[in-house]
């Protein structure tokens, strides 16, 4: 066992946290720069755009790194959103706490004052919460100021075409500086030109050239080289639907108008009319159009079903995704039932089964001869004696195959959904007898089919009896929105459904295989945001409103005489120290949010430097203080089109679809988790390596840092 002192001079654990967190700065806000993570040994690379994927691909053998990973995963598991915020604040607060340590503030004082400061802020911001029933009114209320922008229209129109997706930043090996390579330049495009998807050949080698191919629209030129546009020119562009800083615009992406059944820009009238979820989803989408359309469509479907029930919740267990590669992103849509990729052989079976009502069987294990339920221990000491070898008895496997297919035939099953793997030979037999067998089906899908068809999942085919088989399913090949069947590669998308099934599949289409994971992540994030917003029953105004109120609240707290709260450590401190420490520690807490807002302003090109951004935040704080009630000021600014607008920004005349909201629970939990992690590492003074690795440590260059028992 070895023992290592963490607190040599500066706190090593906090330094590790801060350097790990600094890699995720660019994921903050609606404009996320993508990163390439390259494995130097295998040369494999992956495109990532979220804190979770970043942490997954980093080497985290240090104790602090492990704890950070654990924290991010826990937030991801519960909320599926807020991880970038968490990662950023871990870094910002680690730095701030190290500065407190350097000013000789005792650790217990930092711990108790910071955690009570955060508590106090979380209570203060409750007044900003918007209950879900009020969201629509809140989002639609606009202060109309006619003719706000004239000369800027051209600029704005151009900006409207800038989808965050079109900015691909490639970063080699994380630590290298980022290089921004826009894959198309919008500067020459007129407002009405039709933009289709950008097709980047996946084999082109992103790191080196990024030769960029833009699909040919109606009038636009076809090929642009990425090197033609400088990084700065694309950074100064502004975003639409930014969670944080919105710019007014006149039109939505023209290409998306076509592909989404002619929805006008923003949520369609029927969507927000029937359920009000349209607005909420838009506000939570933070500018991500593709996912927004899918989630709105899911909301509409579920709302329709909910007419008979009385819940306004979203059921996430009834949603699955299916990625179809080779189609442009505009083909993404929501299909009722279960869409999955099948082999051409299975596709021919589906064609045969077209129009038929299928008898369905659900299996919750593997469909192989060797499979036994979990917890079954195979006997090792059983020997079989064959006394009279019969010449005609074929291989043992064949008898199993024919027995199983006999069972399927006798119950007239046409469709088998299997949770695990399916034996290939058996699959072949089933295809020959026109039974559709699909393997690797998620548990939720089985459950949905069980509920819709009355089928009951079995583990072994030998368990089968008439009551286990469901009825009323059907299968067909999945068709894209324009009605054409998709036959792009080896696998074919098929749709399996049943009468009254609650299951919905979000079919995510993309031409870029490397983006498939990104699209799925973004879709799930938005879905979970909407789910949690409905569960919480309230949302926060977005765009930095909450953080700004926290900043102004902490200013007030720091000026207040007396220690904050009555924590154990603070109670025992005589007042003169408490007051001095309090202002330093609370400023440290505030610096996290201030950096957060500054980096947002920079990432969204609202400020050219962090210094400028910081000044702008200070200006808003002063305005809020001058107003008397900070929360009233912030709510007013939010209603006018967003907080943290700079003075030169025009007040938008149509703000309905520009306002953004954040989740209540996810946000405050992300703060708390980030602070907990920093304080946990702060209070750690030693690392103890357990286990018998003594000689390894003794031989390592850092052996002098260890002590042995």
């Amino acid at each position: 066992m070895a023992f290592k002192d963490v607190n040599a001079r500066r706190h090593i654990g906090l330094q590790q946290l801060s350097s790990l967190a600094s890699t995720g700065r660019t994921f903050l806000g609606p404009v996320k720069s993508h990163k390439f993570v390259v494995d130097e040994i295998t040369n494999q690379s992956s495109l990532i755009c979220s804190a979770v994927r970043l942490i997954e691909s980093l080497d985290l053998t240090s104790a602090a790194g492990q704890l950070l990973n654990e924290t991010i995963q826990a937030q991801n598991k519960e909320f599926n959103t807020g991880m970038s915020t968490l990662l950023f604040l871990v870094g910002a607060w680690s730095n701030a706490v190290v500065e407190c340590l350097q000013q000789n503030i005792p650790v217990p004082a930092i711990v108790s004052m910071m955690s009570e400061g955060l508590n106090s802020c979380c209570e203060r911001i409750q007044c900003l919460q918007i209950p879900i029933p009020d969201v629509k009114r809140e989002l639609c209320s606009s202060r109309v100021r006619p003719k706000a922008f004239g000369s800027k229209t051209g600029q704005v129109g151009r900006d409207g075409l800038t989808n965050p997706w079109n900015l691909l930043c490639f970063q080699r090996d994380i630590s290298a500086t980022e290089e921004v390579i826009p894959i198309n330049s919008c500067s020459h495009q007129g407002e009405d030109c039709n933009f289709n998807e950008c097709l980047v050949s996946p084999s082109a080698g992103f790191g080196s050239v990024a030769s960029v191919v833009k699909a040919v629209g109606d009038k636009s030129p076809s090929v642009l080289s990425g090197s033609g546009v400088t990084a700065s020119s694309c950074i100064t562009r502004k975003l639409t639907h930014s969670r944080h800083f919105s710019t007014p615009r006149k039109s939505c992406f023209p290409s998306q108008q076509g592909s989404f059944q002619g929805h006008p820009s923003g949520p369609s009238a029927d969507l927000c009319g029937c359920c009000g979820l349209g607005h909420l989803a838009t506000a939570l989408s933070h500018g991500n159009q593709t996912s927004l359309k899918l989630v709105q469509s899911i909301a509409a479907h579920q709302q329709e079903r909910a007419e008979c029930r009385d819940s306004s919740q979203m059921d996430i267990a009834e949603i699955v995704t299916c990625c179809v590669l080779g189609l442009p992103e505009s083909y993404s849509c929501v299909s009722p039932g279960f869409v999955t990729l099948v082999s051409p052989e299975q596709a021919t079976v589906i064609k045969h089964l077209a129009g038929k009502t299928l008898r369905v069987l659900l299996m919750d294990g593997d469909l192989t001869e060797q499979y036994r339920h979990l917890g079954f221990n195979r006997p090792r000491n059983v020997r079989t004696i064959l006394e009279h070898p019969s010449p005609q008895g074929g291989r043992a496997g064949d008898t199993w195959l024919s027995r199983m297919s006999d069972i399927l035939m006798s119950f007239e099953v046409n469709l088998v959904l299997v949770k695990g793997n399916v034996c290939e030979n058996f699959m072949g037999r089933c295809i020959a007898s026109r039974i559709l067998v699909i393997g690797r089906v998620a548990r939720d899908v089985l459950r949905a089919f069980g509920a819709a068809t009355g089928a009951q999942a079995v583990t072994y085919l030998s368990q089968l009896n008439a009551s286990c088989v469901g009825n009323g399913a059907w299968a067909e090949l999945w068709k894209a929105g324009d009605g054409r069947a998709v036959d792009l590669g080896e696998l074919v998308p098929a749709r399996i459904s049943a009468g009254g099934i609650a299951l919905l599949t979000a079919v995510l289409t993309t031409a870029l295989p490397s983006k498939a994971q990104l699209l799925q992540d973004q879709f799930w994030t938005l879905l979970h945001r909407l789910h949690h917003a409905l569960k919480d029953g309230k949302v926060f105004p977005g765009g930095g409103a909450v953080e700004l109120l926290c900043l102004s609240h902490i200013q007030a707290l720091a000026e207040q005489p007396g220690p904050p709260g009555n924590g154990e450590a603070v109670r025992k401190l005589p007042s003169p120290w408490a007051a001095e420490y309090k202002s330093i520690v609370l400023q440290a807490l505030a610096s996290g949010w201030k950096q957060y807002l500054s980096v947002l302003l920079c990432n969204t090109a609202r400020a050219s430097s962090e210094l400028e951004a910081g000044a702008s935040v200070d200006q808003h704080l002063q305005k809020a203080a001058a107003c008397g009630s900070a929360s009233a000021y912030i709510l007013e600014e939010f209603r006018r089109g967003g907080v943290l607008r700079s003075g030169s920004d025009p007040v938008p005349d149509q703000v309905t679809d520009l306002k953004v909201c954040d989740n209540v629970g996810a946000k405050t939990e992300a703060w708390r988790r980030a602070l907990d992690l920093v304080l946990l590492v702060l209070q750690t003074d030693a690392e103890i390596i357990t286990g018998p690795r003594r000689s390894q440590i003794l031989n390592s260059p850092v052996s002098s840092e260890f002590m042995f028992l």
Partner: protein
Amino acid sequence: MSRLEAKKPPLFISEPLARDAVSQSLSVLSGILKSSYGPAGRLKQLHNGVGGCVCTTSQSSALLGHLSVSQPVLRVLTASVRNHVSRFSDCGLFTAILCCGFIENFRSLNVAPFTVIKISRHLLSLCLDHLKSEACGCRVSVDFSSVETLACLVRSILTSKPACMLNKTEVDHLTSLVLRAFIFTVPCHVETNAVLGKCVIIPVKGSRVMDSAVFPGLLIETPEIQLGKPLAVKRTGSNMIRIALFSVSMSGDGFNPEEGTVAVHHGISLEVSELNQLLSVGKQLVKDEVGLVVCQKVMHPSLKQYLKENSVLAVDRAGLSVMEPLGRMTGSQSIASIHSLSPGCYGTLKDLCIQSFASKHFLHLIPEDTVFCSLILCNRSETAWDELKRVCETAEHVLQLTVKEPLALLGGGCTETHLASYIRYKSSSLPASTFKDLDCSQTQYQLVAEGFCRSLESVARSLSHDGEEILTDMVYGHSWFVPSGSPCVSKWSDLVSKCGCGVNDNTEDLSWRFLQGQSGSPVIQGCPKELSPKVADLLTLDCFAAKCSGLQVALETANLILDLSYIIEDQN
């Protein structure tokens, strides 16, 4: 050809304590333990260095459990501390630090170990007699008719481990939950032999601490349960639910003998015959009107299907931890064989329902009258949850110990400094006959007594981690903390606000002085006064039984180690 190797002779190490390697290891260990002590203690990250999970803790059981110690002297120490912790749960760090202090202080004395041991035993008996006497000024009696003292006790334990990452509201919430859980385990109708029940802790990691809850009865996690559907359970004539409890695996692989080989003829399947046996058990259960079958291990899917078709609820993989409480709660005997079912082994339940927490679903088993409860324990991170679980178990155990002996000791270092000042006073006023009985001189006695007191005070001093100065008062002998870097002031009362345990404040002049450093000369003082502490809201209290045992274990272990003259190491 086999080769015989001559046995190596064992290695003799004489005077192990005099060796550098031993004393160095001892000081590292004592450094680790001292820096972890108390609510401001620093945490340790325990991990294997190659990406295994990280345990962040300041708890003796976790620390000593993970340390692999190679020095025999340290092994003696850690083993006796772990033994103490296994019996009392609390005061592990206290015991270990005190033991290290005794070794350190007694070793430097120029007194024969034999004499030191005799004198220190006498000092220990003085301490224990004082602690057990009514006049003791550092103990409070626990009043079970009100919740306040108990809440102080639980709160002190919860706040003593910072790795739980609790804020004040969360501490309050958990304090009340732990107390409620404890009260559930106390039987309502006490006959001659009252037996406390048990609180089963159920993990829900990743949620807010405030989502934690306590339920009477037991919760069993059932991932497969269908929500939304009402639970249809078969009931017996008296409207109760009959329950069968299996500790044997029902997965259908029971034909696996321990050794030897089974030969079967082709065409005979052991699996099928085993399944048929299981199904006949199922038939018997249905016939006996059993409504709920709980299996500790795995159940064969066919058996589950059969039971379900006959509207019997089947739960498998219940795990070992619920078996004993489940058996006691329902009055059933767990069935260890699928070949014999006697009707006498079934138990009964009043009701069943489903509870959901975060994404987990549980079957809630509600008995008629119970001394068992389930504490759903939530914390945000894995490492903080593990620490919180250990802390809650300690608190539960301490409450049980307190029922037996309704006393508590003042925490925050006050008991230690109080005892030290009592011993100083007492040892200066002993009759000469005592020294004669102990076969020692008065000077020797005074030297050992001083070492004893310093060891006690070093425990109180270990509570300071940020350079705070420690004072003690001459009236009650409590300990007081002054933040580091304090300016010189004329009155101590400007610097101190409350003593460590929270009983005294700075309103009256208590004539403070610095707690002695290593070189200071002892001050003759009077007997520390007794005070009747009124139980305030935020009093820090320690478990009486655990601390008394810790004191004894620390001294006995230190004496054993001091008495070591050889270590004999087998080198083969």
